[in-house]
C-alpha cells in the first residue's frame, strides 16, 4: 500500500508535453527475439532447409488409413478383444493413479517445508535459516530424478527386472506420477494457511498428529481433485505403455498398425477416445464440484486456497468416490498384480545385476560428440513441437471454452437465436472432439502414422509430440478463458463495444500471459516425452536410449540418462526464468 501512495500524484503538477513512448526494447521483446532465433535453429536441425522431408509415395497409404475410419471392424470376433484391451488399459490407469496418489501423499508430506519445520523447530531466534532446510532440500532434490524419467523408460527398466507382468505397467506409471504428485502436494501443503497448525504445535501436540488435525483436512480436497487429474494422465500413460508390450489398447493399436489392419485400428481408436473422453469428463465434473477451477498445477495453487471447499453432501462427489472405490477394487482384482514379486530374491538379484552392469557409465566410442548432437536434436524437436502446439492451441481453445461462443458468452452477448446457439454448440463440440482425439492417441502412434508420408527424422517426431501436446494445451487454455473474470468484459460491452473488439481488449490481453505460461510449463513435460517418439525411430536421444535398452547396454543407458537429465534441468531453468521475466 505504501508504494502506491508514493505513486499517487499530488495534483497541480503540470504535464510537460506527452510522456515519451516506452522503448520497444524490453524484456518481452528480447525473449521474443531469442524465441525467433530458437525456431530458426530448430528448423535447421530438423533439416527443413535442405533435404526432402515429404515422402510422396506414402499418400495412398494415408488414403487407405483414412478410408478405414468410416468402416471400423465391428465383427463379433474382434469386439471382445477390444473390450478386454480397454479394461486392461483402464485397470492399469486406475491402479497406477491410486498407487501414485498414495506415494504422492506420503512423499508430499515428507517433502513439504512445513513438515520439516514442524519436526525440527527453529532453535535459536537469531538464525536466519532453520535447521529444517537440509533434510527438506535433499528430499526435494531426490524427487527430480523419478520425475524426469518418462513412464516408458521406467517400463523398460521394470520389464528387465520383473518381466512382462501387470506390476511392471503399474509401477511404471506410479513411480514418475507419484513423484510429480508428491511435488504438487507438498506445494499445496506449504501454501495452506498455517495458523491452525502452529496453534496445535505450540500447545505441545506431536507433528504428525498436529498435521493430521490441521493442514491435511484443509489440503485434502486439493489432493483429491489432483488425484483425478492424474487419472486422466494415467489413461494416456497406460495407452503409451502398451507400445512396449504391456498389453491394453496401446499394444493392440500398435499391432494393428504394424500388420496394416486399419479397420481394426480404428475400432481400437474409438474405444480409446471413449475411455479417454469419459475419464476427462468425469474428472472435470468432479473437480468443478470440488471447487478446483483448473486442472493444472499452476492454477490449482493460485486459486485453490480461495475456492476450495468440500461439498460433502454433493451427490456427484459421493457417487464419484463410490465409483472410484469400485473401480479400484475391480482393477486390482482384474490384473492381480503380484506385489510379493518386489520382495522376491530373484528380483533383488536381477536388480543388483542391472545396477552392477550400469556403472561406471560409458560414454559412446564416438565420444560425447554424438550425445551433444542428439541433445541438440531433442531440444530442437521439443521447441518445434511446443511452438506448433501453442500456435494451433490458442485459436482452437477459444471456441472450446464454454463461455465464448454460446449465448451469453464473450463473443455472443446477444440473447441469440437458435441459429447462433446451434453454431456455437457445434463449434464447441467440434473443437473439443479435435482436442480429445489429439491427446487420446499416444504420441508414438501419431509418429508412426506420420511416417507414412514423412521421412524419418526430427520432423515426424516433433509433429507427433506437437499434436499430442496440442490436445492437452488446448484444453488447458480453454479453461483459462473459462476462468476469466468477466466483469471487465461487461464494462466494455456496456459502453457499446462490439464482440470482436471486446475480445481484443478484454480477453486476449488477460489470457495470453496464461497461455504462454502453460506452453512453457508443458515444455518440461514435452522434453520428457521426446523419449517416446524416439522409440519408434523419430530421432533424438529417445532413439539412442531405446537401442541401448534393447541391447542391455546399461552403462550406455546411464550415460545417455545423465545427458537427458542435464537437458531437462536446462529446460526447467529456462522455462522458469522466462515465466518470471514475462510476468
Amino acid at each position, binding site marked *: 500500500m505504501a508504494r*502506491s*501512495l508514493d*505513486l*499517487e*500524484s499530488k*495534483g497541480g*503538477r503540470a*504535464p510537460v508535453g*506527452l*510522456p515519451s*513512448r*516506452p522503448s520497444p526494447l524490453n524484456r518481452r521483446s528480447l525473449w521474443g527475439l531469442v524465441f525467433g532465433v530458437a525456431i530458426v535453429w530448430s528448423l535447421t536441425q530438423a533439416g527443413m532447409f535442405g533435404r526432402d522431408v515429404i515422402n510422396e509415395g506414402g499418400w495412398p497409404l494415408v488414403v487407405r488409413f483414412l478410408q478405414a475410419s468410416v468402416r471400423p471392424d465391428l465383427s463379433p470376433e474382434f469386439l471382445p478383444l477390444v473390450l478386454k484391451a480397454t479394461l486392461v488399459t483402464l485397470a492399469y490407469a486406475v491402479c497406477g493413479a491410486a498407487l501414485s496418489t498414495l506415494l504422492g501423499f506420503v512423499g508430499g508430506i515428507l517433502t513439504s517445508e512445513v513438515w520439516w519445520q514442524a519436526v525440527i523447530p527453529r532453535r535459536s531466534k537469531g538464525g536466519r535459516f532453520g535447521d529444517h532446510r537440509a533434510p527438506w532440500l535433499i528430499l526435494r532434490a531426490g524427487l527430480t530424478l523419478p520425475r524426469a524419467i518418462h513412464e516408458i523408460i521406467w517400463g523398460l527398466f521394470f520389464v528387465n527386472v520383473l518381466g512382462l507382468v501387470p506390476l511392471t505397467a503399474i509401477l511404471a506409471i506410479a513411480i514418475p506420477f507419484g513423484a510429480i504428485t508428491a511435488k504438487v502436494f507438498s506445494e499445496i501443503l506449504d501454501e495452506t494457511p498455517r495458523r491452525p497448525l502452529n496453534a496445535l504445535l505450540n500447545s505441545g501436540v506431536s507433528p504428525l498428529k498436529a498435521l493430521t488435525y490441521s493442514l491435511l483436512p484443509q489440503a485434502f480436497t486439493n489432493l483429491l481433485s489432483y488425484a483425478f487429474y492424474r487419472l486422466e494422465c494415467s489413461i494416456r500413460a497406460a495407452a503409451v505403455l502398451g507400445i512396449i508390450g504391456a498389453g491394453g489398447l496401446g499394444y493392440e493399436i500398435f499391432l494393428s498398425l504394424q500388420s496394416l489392419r486399419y479397420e481394426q485400428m480404428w475400432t481400437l481408436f474409438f474405444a480409446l477416445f471413449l475411455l479417454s473422453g469419459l475419464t476427462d469428463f468425469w474428472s472435470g465434473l468432479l473437480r468443478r464440484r470440488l471447487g478446483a477451477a483448473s486442472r493444472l498445477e499452476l492454477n490449482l495453487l493460485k486459486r485453490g486456497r480461495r475456492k476450495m471447499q468440500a461439498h460433502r453432501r454433493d451427490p456427484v462427489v459421493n457417487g464419484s468416490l463410490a465409483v472410484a472405490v469400485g473401480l479400484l477394487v475391480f482393477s486390482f482384482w482384474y490384473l492381480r498384480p503380484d506385489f510379493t514379486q518386489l520382495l522376491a530374491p530373484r528380483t533383488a538379484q536381477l536388480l543388483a545385476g542391472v545396477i552392477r552392469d550400469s556403472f561406471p557409465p560409458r560414454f559412446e566410442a564416438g565420444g560425447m560428440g554424438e550425445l551433444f548432437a542428439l541433445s541438440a536434436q531433442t531440444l530442437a524437436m521439443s521447441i518445434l513441437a511446443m511452438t506448433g502446439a501453442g500456435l494451433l492451441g490458442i485459436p482452437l481453445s477459444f471456441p472450446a471454452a464454454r463461455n465464448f461462443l454460446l449465448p451469453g458468452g464473450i463473443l455472443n*452477448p*446477444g440473447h441469440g437465436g437458435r441459429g447462433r446457439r446451434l453454431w456455437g454448440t457445434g463449434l464447441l463440440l467440434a473443437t473439443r472432439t479435435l482436442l480429445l482425439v489429439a491427446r487420446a492417441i499416444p504420441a508414438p502412434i501419431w509418429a508412426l502414422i506420420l511416417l507414412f508420408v514423412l521421412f524419418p527424422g526430427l520432423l515426424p517426431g516433433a509433429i507427433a509430440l506437437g499434436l499430442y501436446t496440442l490436445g492437452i494445451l488446448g484444453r488447458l487454455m480453454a479453461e483459462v478463458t473459462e476462468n476469466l473474470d468477466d*466483469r*471487465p468484459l*461487461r*464494462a*466494455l*460491452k*456496456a*459502453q*457499446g*463495444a*462490439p464482440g*470482436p*473488439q*471486446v475480445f*481484443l*481488449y*478484454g480477453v486476449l*490481453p*488477460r489470457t495470453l*500471459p496464461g497461455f504462454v505460461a502453460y506452453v512453457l510449463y508443458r515444455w518440461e513435460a514435452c522434453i520428457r516425452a521426446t523419449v517416446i517418439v524416439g522409440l519408434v525411430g523419430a530421432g533424438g536421444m529417445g532413439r539412442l536410449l531405446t537401442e541401448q535398452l534393447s541391447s542391455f547396454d546399461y552403462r550406455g543407458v546411464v550415460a545417455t540418462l545423465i545427458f537427458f537429465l542435464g537437458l531437462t534441468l536446462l529446460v526447467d531453468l529456462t522455462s522458469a526464468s522466462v515465466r518470471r521475466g514475462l510476468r
Partner: protein
Amino acid sequence: MTRPGDPSGFRTCAGPIFELKNVDRRFGDLQALTDVNLRIWPGERVALVGPSGAGKTTLINLLNGSLLPSRGEVRVLGHNLARLNPRALRQVQRQIGTVYQQFYLVDNLRVIHNVNAGHLGRWSFLKAAWSLLRPLEVETAAQALAQVGIPEKLYARTDQLSGGQQQRVALARVLVQDPAAILADEPISNVDPERGREIMDLLRRLNRQTGKTLVVSLHAIEFAYSHCRRIVGLRRGRILFDAPPSKVSPEMVAALYRIEGGRGEDGPVP
C-alpha cells in the same frame, strides 16, 4: 474532445434521457427492483442512495443496457432497450459511459490502452488491433488523463496504479468515450476518503462544464448532499423518495437506512 458527426439526434432529444416505467427486476427468487418509476433529464446530477442490497447496482445496469427488466420498460434516449437489436443497442450504449466500484479495467494492459478502450464502440477491429501494437490517438488519451489529474501515467501498467489512480483511468476512458451520460456505481467505495472527494469533484465538474448527465450511486449520503442536485433513495428495491437535497430530511435518511429486526419478514417482497 467532441467529435463531429456525432449522432446528435441522441443528444438533443427533447424528452428524458432515462425513463423507467413500472420496472421490476428479478434474479431467480430474488426481487432486486420492484415497480420503479424514474425519469432523468439531460444535464441532471442525480445521486442514488440506500443501504447495500437496495438495488442501486441493478438500477445502474438497467440504465446502461447490461440488464433488461423482468417487467416494465427502460427507455434510454427515447429507445426502449428491450426492443433494440444488438447493433442498435450498442449505438445507444455508446452514449452511456459507466464507471464501477471495482474499476473493471484490464489490469495487465498499459494505461493508454485502457483509456483508448473508450474508442472501441467507434473503432474498427483492425484499428483497435493496430493500436494495441502502437497506440493511436495518443493526444486524446493524454488530454483525458490530464483532465483527471494523472497525465504522467500514460504508459504505466494499470495494475501498478493505486485504487484512486485506477478509478481516474476508468474516468479517462469514459471521457474518451464522450457519452451523453455518465453512470457511476459507487465510484468512491474503494478509494480513500481524500481521493474520493477529488473524484466526486471531478464528476461534478464534468457535469457542469460539459452538460453530461450524471447518475451516481453512493453508499454514504454525505456526498449526495454536497455534490448532487437530486437524491433518489432506494430501499429493498423500491424508491422511497426522490427529491432535491434541500427537501431530504434527516428523518427520511433515517428511514432509508433503518435496520429492521426479524430477518425472516425482511426478505424480498414476493
